[in-house]
């Protein structure tokens, strides 16, 4: 774990993080509901419970930094700057979606916001991230790329291949393993030889650490430190973020492989939003009423996103022929 020290993060930043986490929570809840109302179909992986990590990381980055992720990335995409309405419209397969309805839940992209997807092959995004790190070094820039992956992705061969390359060639890639302890329905301890996933970095003599992904402030401070160092030395780093998803692997997963009490324990005692809310109240930086009001704002924003997606037209059928190849 990272060492504790007095936080330099001010009130406005903390409140911003609180609001953003509420938005991510309420957005994903609305996505889940829209799915059950059959507003869209396909696979849908919710990030509920993991907001502290998404917001803590995002708040440590610049707009010019890149981000790439797996298939649980709706809110990471919003965090990088894509409008919530454009993400919701993409889920609905509508023309105002960030990929004009061609990507879907697993494939959010925005060139404008340096969000490089949304990828559906477990671990497949890691080589792409290392390619972006290569390009940063090639052009001698000082930005970085964050590469999110799930715990189970650390067992994919290509991830090992490119961690080796990133470490050998000093490519500025921050690999963040979102360890929510379950690769779909399989407890990570049943499939993985190491007790801590940051140990994968030892094989490549690569920087590594872990962080409490349920604590947004800890994540923010640790990632800020990592990224600022990386801008200078270009060395990659593997960060294991211990987190937890409250919902199933996907919306169609009832989650019978884990105890109800385990989920409830996280929700009651380790929830990132409740945690930061308590801190704000303790510091007298916010009142319970203000917290409630900010949450209501988030609910309203999520509702607006859904209304935007509802109102967006279907893409023309003929668009299916577009974007196969550049003419």
């Amino acid at each position, binding site marked *: 774990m990272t060492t504790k020290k007095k936080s330099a993060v001010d009130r406005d930043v903390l409140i911003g993080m609180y609001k953003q986490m509420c938005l991510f929570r309420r957005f994903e809840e609305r996505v889940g509901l829209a799915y059950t109302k059959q507003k869209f179909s396909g696979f849908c992986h919710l990030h509920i419970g993991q907001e502290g990590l998404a917001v803590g990381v995002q708040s440590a980055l610049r707009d010019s930094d*890149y981000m*790439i992720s797996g298939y649980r990335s709706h809110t990471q995409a919003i965090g990088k700057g894509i409008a919530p309405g454009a993400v919701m419209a993409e889920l609905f397969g509508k023309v105002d*979606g*960030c*990929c*004009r*309805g*061609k*990507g*879907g839940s697993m*494939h959010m*992209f*925005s*060139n404008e916001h340096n969000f*490089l*997807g*949304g*990828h*559906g*092959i477990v671990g*497949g995004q*890691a*080589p*792409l*991230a*290392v*390619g*972006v*790190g*290569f*390009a940063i070094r*090639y052009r001698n820039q000082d930005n970085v790329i964050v590469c999110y992956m799930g715990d189970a992705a650390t067992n994919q*061969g*290509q991830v090992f*291949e*490119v961690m*080796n*390359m990133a470490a*050998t060639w000093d490519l500025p890639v921050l690999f963040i393993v979102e360890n929510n302890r379950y690769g779909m329905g399989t407890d990570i301890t049943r499939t993985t030889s190491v007790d801590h996933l940051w140990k994968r970095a030892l094989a490549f003599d690569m920087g590594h650490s872990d962080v409490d992904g349920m604590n947004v402030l800890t994540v923010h401070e640790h990632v800020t430190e990592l990224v600022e160092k990386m801008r200078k030395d270009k060395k990659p780093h593997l960060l294991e973020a211990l987190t937890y998803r409250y919902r199933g692997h996907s919306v169609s997963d009832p989650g019978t492989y884990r105890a109800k009490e385990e989920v409830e324990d996280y929700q009651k005692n380790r929830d990132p939003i409740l945690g930061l809310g308590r801190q704000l109240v303790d510091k007298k930086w916010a009142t319970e009423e203000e917290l409630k009001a900010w949450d209501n704002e988030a609910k309203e924003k999520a509702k607006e996103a859904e209304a935007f997606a509802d109102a967006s037209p279907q893409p023309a059928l003929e668009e299916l022929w*577009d*974007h*196969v*190849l*550049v003419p």
Partner: protein
Amino acid sequence: MAIITFREALGQAISEEMTRDANVFLMGEEVGLYNGAYKVSKGLLDQFGAKRVWDAPISEAGFAGLGIGAAMVGLRPIIEFMTWNFGIQAFDQIVNHAAKMLYMSGGQFNMPIVFRGPNGAAHMLGAQHSQAYESMITNIPGLKVVTCSTPYDGKGLLKSAIRDNNPVLFLESEMMYGMKGEVPEEEYLIPLGKGDIKREGTDVTFIAWNKALHKATEAAEALAKEGISVEVLDPRTLQPLDEELIFASVRKTHRVVIIEESWSFGSVGSQISDRIHKECFDELDAPVSRVTNEFVPMPYNEAQEERVLPNLDRIIAAAKEVLYIKG
């Protein structure tokens, strides 16, 4: 015109394009210090330095994916596979990532990348080093597939492939690297998607590409001595296919033999045959005939390998079959 080898022609193409555009770089196993496993990249490390000519670890999925990520942010990688037999380690990256990026991002991310290397059987390399992949890779929307049969074509096509904003899979041949041919001193390009008539004829059309083109030409020369005039057509680009050139030749000769050093089931040859039967049925004086590898893994034994690949006897027999000549 200068007479140079195939490997020199390909090397010139890479060198000229790297000179022209600082975003072009070469990565692959042994491409730098070793000067290339087949010496295609000879001299490039000296010319351009280690920043642009990268020796990769033996991690095909990793460095192919690195190229794809670099292409997403505007570099123009040339990824060399020592052989396409190793390249299939990277099929996840090529098929799931390179081929889909433009489409699933709704047109936001171009993929200007070339994957190149030798394809097909060489001589007594055994089952794992003798495979031809054109039939598999032409089956994937979002990829261009280019072959070459002469140094002139190789250079002009490779230059176009490097300038193309789509992923191009470029197929060469170990057996042809030492082959010599005329290549102009001045710069030229050959457009992708355009085939070439290598030999004019009137009685029957041979369609062949890559190394098989030379067997087809040899058979055409043998048949000329018997008074049979063969037109030899090299489609060069297999995806997208120059169907107009093929149909025009069929309308002229009314008889077709397709020769491919690949397997028969669901192949490029069977696709061309299907298109001819569909579009030129009334022009045909005989069903299209195909000469392919026998449907077995490649044997090591010299005589057995020779028997599996299309050979002169089988090509001549097929020509006589469509001409209804006995014996």
